[in-house]
């Protein structure tokens, strides 16, 4: 009798565990995708002799079945002085609908299936006595990593999305700054 009761309890427990597992599997999680192929070309924001600002946009989509959170987002710019010492490039990222005047990224909820636009804003500072436009026009391809700290139903994870700012688009941004300066 006691043995049968134990077997019954074990059976109920296993059944409950199975139901819970299936429920969790069916529930899914937030899945964040950054479509690097849809990145816009660098476009000029504003420019002066000492500083040139440009931006690019990237779509971020939660392709999962659960709401998720982008807890933090920031940029790493892999421009080594060994590669090119004519420029210091800095960058920050915000949601296009939530631009900030500081370097802070405000944590954001992204509903299942929702798409948001990330705006990556760069500032170029010339080195070696050149103007910002001249320094950017001569810049090589620059590798950039967008780093997202993501959270869904699982543990926090970091997503790193790498792309290249091509020399041609940087030159085009610099030329549009020149055109703007020349009226």
């Amino acid at each position: 009798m006691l043995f049968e009761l134990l077997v019954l309890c074990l059976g109920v427990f296993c059944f409950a565990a199975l139901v819970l597992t299936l429920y969790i599997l069916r529930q899914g999680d937030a899945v964040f995708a950054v479509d690097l192929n849809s990145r816009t070309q660098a476009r000029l924001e504003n420019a002066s002799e000492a500083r040139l600002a440009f931006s690019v946009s990237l779509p971020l989509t939660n392709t999962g079945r659960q709401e998720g959170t982008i807890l933090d987002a920031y940029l790493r710019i892999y421009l080594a002085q060994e590669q090119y010492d004519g420029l210091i490039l800095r960058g920050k990222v915000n949601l296009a609908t939530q631009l900030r005047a500081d370097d802070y990224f405000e944590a954001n909820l992204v509903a299942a299936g929702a798409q948001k636009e990330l705006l990556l804003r760069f500032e170029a500072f010339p080195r070696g006595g050149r103007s910002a436009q001249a320094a950017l026009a001569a810049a090589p391809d620059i590798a950039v990593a967008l780093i997202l700290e993501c959270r869904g139903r699982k543990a926090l994870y970091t997503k790193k999305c790498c792309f290249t700012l091509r020399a041609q688009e940087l030159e085009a941004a610099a030329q549009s700054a020149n055109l703007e300066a020349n009226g």
Partner: protein
Amino acid sequence: MTELRRQYEIIAVPTPILTEHDEICAVIEKYALPLLGAADVICVAESVLAITQGRAKRCDEFQPGLAARILCRLFPSKGSISSPYSMQALLDVSGLARVSVAVIAGAIAKIFGISGVFYRLAGDEARLIDDVTGTMPPYDKHIVYGPAEPAKAAQEIAQSFSCCGAAVADVNDLKRSEVLGTSRGVDAAQVAAILIDNPFGNGSEKTPICIIKNYHPA
């Protein structure tokens, strides 16, 4: 409720962003004291009091266990305890046994169409924990517990200043107003009704303290 709100003048007191390095009485003394009269009640936003008590933690300060990872799945993803981190925050204060019993009782009650049972059984923190994005920057990346001993904190505030009383309130723009603790002589339900229009603000207003002028118990 709105009628009661109109009977009172409420002054929202701006302050800088408060952190765990601030002490709430010192903040009140610095920013609210010049506006405070003997018949007034000082109200403090619960999340800001909790932050000054050191009750805001980053996700990476929690170590979610298997129970937190499973239990969080049972709540809608919009809820404050739907992540392993916020669920672990609840488990740390309420305990696994209590939360498990509350989950089972809540599920059974739901079958019979009764809602809210989990939140009544799992402890105050189940409804007070604010998950990430629930608080303004720089605490948007933190999980913020409810304040510790809100009635005691209110009593200490009231005793520190020559005013009528103090209250710790949880109010939002969705017309939800709850008073978590008051000093002696202050009616919690009445203060909740007076604060129904959320004079604290939930955005960038930075007014975590407000003063109800010339308070008189109902």
